[in-house]
């Protein structure tokens, strides 16, 4: 059983990869191969979150095709990795994530409409509500992980129990900044959780061309840090591993690297054509590993799912997302004030002169 779960079709030539140490709790048919880390009610709540995340994602792709978003990077297939990990956080924990992590960011309080704004080419998309300590989605690959280290380090120095989680991809692990972030976290034992979604690709580059190490998880060892590989399409495994990492961080035991193995079912962004670099067969095989269907089946086995509830969940998700789209689209475009006024806390005299030229 365990064995089948651990096999992935992966990489440019649809290579078969077996990672024997990957943490796994729910198998492909939604049966437990370990112990469920959360109760049924929580699972149902997270199921709703998975559905809502997917509804957002589908909408994102559609809106971009319609020219209503500037760019969109689909997260299709990565819902469990994002929802499961974010579910392990406290509401006041910090999050530093990327362009593809809408599901995680929303879980931590970043509203859908603000996420949409960020993808529509509006600076206000980087401004979550007060008390939501989630940084604007990072577009530069790699640079943001050290921010989570600095943030959580500051919390540690100030004696709070807040931790920081940072999301990044397999590609990001190649950047020098990944190394410096991991190394600082190791040396200073910062309360940081490094959550890598290994979705098999960095744009067109398959995971095995990104690094010659067998797993990304093992890189933790180079920093004296705990590293673990989990099935990123297994909500329970992701939740449990993240929860352990969060608990360790909060207990002062330092940082953890989690490699959540998942698959980027869609293109890199809506501008990308995966047909140029991977076998469509791979995408088909990925369907068998759908992270949401697995939870659905689990709930069904447990007698906690039926078609009516599903319909209600889907309907609610779609209403929520439609409402977010309306909200985002109802905003007037950013004003010159928004642009000139946010370079510094106060406009400097030369900037004010330019501002007055624009507005006069």
């Amino acid at each position, binding site marked *: 059983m365990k064995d089948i779960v651990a096999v992935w079709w992966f990489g*440019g030539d649809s290579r078969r990869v077996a990672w024997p140490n990957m943490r796994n709790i729910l198998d492909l048919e939604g049966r437990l191969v370990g112990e469920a880390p959360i109760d049924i009610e929580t699972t149902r709540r997270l199921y709703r979150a998975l559905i809502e995340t997917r509804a957002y994602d589908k909408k994102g792709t559609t809106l971009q095709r319609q020219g209503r978003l500037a760019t969109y990077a689909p997260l299709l297939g990565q819902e469990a990795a994002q929802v499961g990990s974010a579910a392990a956080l406290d509401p006041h924990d910090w999050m530093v994530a990327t362009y593809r992590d809408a599901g995680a960011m929303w879980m931590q309080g970043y509203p859908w409409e603000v996420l949409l704004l960020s993808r529509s080419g509006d600076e206000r998309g980087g401004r979550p509500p007060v008390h939501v300590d989630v940084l604007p989605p990072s577009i530069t690959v790699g640079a943001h992980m050290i921010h989570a280290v600095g943030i959580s380090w500051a919390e540690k120095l100030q004696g709070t129990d807040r931790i920081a989680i940072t999301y990044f991809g397999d590609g990001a692990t*190649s950047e020098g900044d990944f190394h410096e972030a991991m190394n600082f976290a190791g040396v200073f034992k910062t309360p940081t959780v490094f959550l890598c979604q290994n979705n098999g690709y960095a744009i067109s*580059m398959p995971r095995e061309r990104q690094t010659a190490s067998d797993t990304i998880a093992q890189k933790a060892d180079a920093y004296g840090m705990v590293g673990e590989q989990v099935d990123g399409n297994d909500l329970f495994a992701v939740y449990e591993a993240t929860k352990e990492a969060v608990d360790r961080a909060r207990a002062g035991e330092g940082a953890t690297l989690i490699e959540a193995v998942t698959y980027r079912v869609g293109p890199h962004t809506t501008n990308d054509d995966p047909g140029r670099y991977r076998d469509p067969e791979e995408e088909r095989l990925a369907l068998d590993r759908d992270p949401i269907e697995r939870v659905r089946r689990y709930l069904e086995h447990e007698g906690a799912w039926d078609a009516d509830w599903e319909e209600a969940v889907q309907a609610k998700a779609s209403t929520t997302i439609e409402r977010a789209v309306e909200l985002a689209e109802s905003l007037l*475009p950013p*004003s010159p004030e928004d*642009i*000139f006024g946010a*370079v510094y806390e106060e406009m400097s005299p030369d*900037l004010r002169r330019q501002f007055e030229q*624009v507005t006069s």
Partner: protein
Amino acid sequence: MSELTLAGALTDALATALDKDQRVLVIGEDVGQTGGVFRITDGLIGRFGDQRVIDTPVAESGIVGAAFGMAVAGLRPVAEIQFMGFSYPAYDQILSHVARIRNRSQHRFSAPMVIRMPCGGGFGAAEHHSESTEAIYAHIPGLKVVIPATPYDAKGLLLAAIDSPDPVIFLEPIRLYRLVREEVPEGYYTVEIGKARIETEGSDVSIITWGAMTHEVREAVEVLAADGISAEMVDLRTLRPLDEDAIIDSVQKTGRAVVVQEAPKTAGFGAEIAALIGERALYSLHAPVERVAGWDTTIPLKKAEHRYMPTTEAIVAAARRTLDA
């Protein structure tokens, strides 16, 4: 001859170079099977193989540093940085090593390599995808900085850059990639690095620019012409080494100058041009040199980007101011 876009001319240049010189290779993120995010390297891996068209991990410092090593060891790498905004992680490699190895080793080693990067905004891209930081490269001794504005120049300058015994930062204005088609000669030819191009001769005012802003300047020249004002358009093509004489000759002739850049105004490369004119042509000037530039803000995202980009109208107005002065 074939009708090519600027993007097409670049692909053609790369293919021509790869074909002509076994030492040339292309290296960067996604340059292989996908042909790069702008498809500039499209088809090259099929033709030249994955030992000469090399997909790398996501690591800009690594790309530049590895290409540097290859150049030192006798190859002629053409590195692609996906967007200018992602060149900053490689800034140390470029400034401290690529630009300096000839001096550090007193000619014993050199780094004949090209670092290509798409630059500029105006197409509603995501954050960090619309940068115009040419000034941070143009300031560095040891680098050459080239920025073509036409398909013909793009091919000729890229071939000249690949042939250059010294490293070249090769900036590609994204907005011009597919804006127009132009007749581009087949096969090998070069356009000399360090020479500006007078696109339109004129007698009343010199408008000096480079890269994507040539588009707005061209329009401005037409608007002014319709109004009986004869503007001379100077496309610098190379920022370093700068064709000072072309600039000074033009301004001495017209007595008026407008410098147009997309980058934020303060300490942009336009300041160097304006300073130079003040130094070498002050007594010819009938009016202050006008700088038309981006505002001193980060270039806004899609919804407010139009407020930032220097417009044809702004250029026309600046030219008129020099005439009214």
